[in-house]
């Protein structure tokens, strides 16, 4: 592979992407126009676990990236970074979403909840967390924060699910250890004690 390539035109601008980043702003600048409505500012406030946090967020940054690298909330895991596993599930306005596949800028006016925000002020576990402990739902634990958040989201919208409803609701989370059954036991238990 030849370094000259970077100057040749390819059918996809794979390499040019770094340079392309500023091209639209340049376009507007060159045309003497102010940035159009809708252009994003980097410094934003986001509401995470009930706290408003000021963060410098690049326009393309994913929520998982902001949570993990800017806010130190490493409970949100990057199992695949492609929306294919669920380990990064967080709640956005109570709705389970893959943090790896949501832009931070898209949720800046919404409530974001992560696994770190569930315990009560006195340190008591959330009913879902307690039920997962009681049922020994986690195995390796890497998917657990995502499973917890999906379960919390599910129980907020449906506090008394049937086991089948729980199964459908939890379906967007992979557990490679195969602890699905134990997680469902946990969800059903949490529904009882919650």
């Amino acid at each position, binding site marked *: 592979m030849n370094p000259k390539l970077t100057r040749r*035109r390819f*059918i996809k601008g794979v390499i040019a992407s770094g340079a392309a980043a500023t091209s639209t702003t340049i376009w507007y600048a060159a045309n003497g126009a102010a940035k159009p409505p809708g252009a994003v500012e980097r410094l934003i406030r986001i509401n995470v676990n009930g706290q408003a946090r000021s963060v410098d967020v690049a326009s393309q940054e994913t929520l998982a990236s902001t949570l993990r690298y800017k806010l130190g909330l490493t409970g949100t895991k990057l199992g695949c970074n492609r929306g294919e596993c669920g380990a990064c599930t967080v709640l956005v306005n109570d709705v389970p979403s893959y943090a790896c596949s949501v832009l931070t800028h898209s949720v800046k006016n919404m409530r974001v909840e992560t696994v770190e925000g569930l315990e009560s002020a006195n340190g008591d576990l959330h009913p879902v967390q307690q039920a997962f402990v009681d049922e020994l739902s986690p195995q390796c634990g890497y998917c657990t924060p995502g499973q917890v958040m999906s379960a919390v989201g599910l129980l907020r919208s449906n506090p008394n699910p049937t086991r089948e409803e729980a199964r459908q609701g939890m379906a967007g989370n992979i557990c490679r250890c195969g602890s699905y059954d134990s997680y469902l036991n946990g969800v059903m238990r949490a529904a009882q004690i919650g």
Partner: protein
Amino acid sequence: MGEIVRYKRDVWGEEVILGVSWDLLWVVAVAVLVLLAAHAIIMAALANKKMDKPSSEGRRVVRHETIDRLFHWVMAASILILIATGVAPILGLRIAWLNIHWIAGLLLTFVVVFHIIRSLFWQDFKSMVLGPKDFGEPFDSAKKPGKYTFEQKGMHWAVTVVVLAVIVTGILLFMQIDTPFWDRTNSMPEDRLGLMFLLHGLSTLALVALAATHIYFALRPEKLFYTRSMVSGWISEDEMTANHDTSLWSPKEAD
């Protein structure tokens, strides 16, 4: 602009030729337009000095046999279809072009093969031979050509080269797609495939230029009688004697 070749990465991530840069289509279009416009303007400026147009009345001689005229128009139609269908997706027109394209391509191949065979055995092949003497023709107003003028011979042979190139590369590319006759094999290495696309593209560009030039001249008033002869087969004796050396070309009289 400024690039002739487009590149892509092959399956291994290495650079290979993808094909011609279609920006060249615009370059060609503009260049041809400019050149032809210039020609038209110059011709218009020189128009008064021109002799009177020879009369199309009177005795008629045969210039093109029916079969050759048929060949010409089939070839012209297939080339225009090939250009139109080939260029449409480049211009962003959403038509199902590929089947028409290869069918037209097969037709073109068929008639070209027919023409080659016919010209070698049944036509006066020599009348189209472009020899060193012919190059003096444009510069010597006293010198008249045989059946075909220098320009006509030049156009013919340029088209021959380009059409053969487009046919050969086209057939090779044709073999890379699914057709009713075979399933594609992906057997051509990607770099060679890209080269074929490049040559096909370059010959297409040349063909576009040649076709535009050819059509332009065919529509020029002083050449229009040739165009008519390609439709109806004949030119008048006046037209013949004004433009051709009858010692070199003595056609039979038209019916």
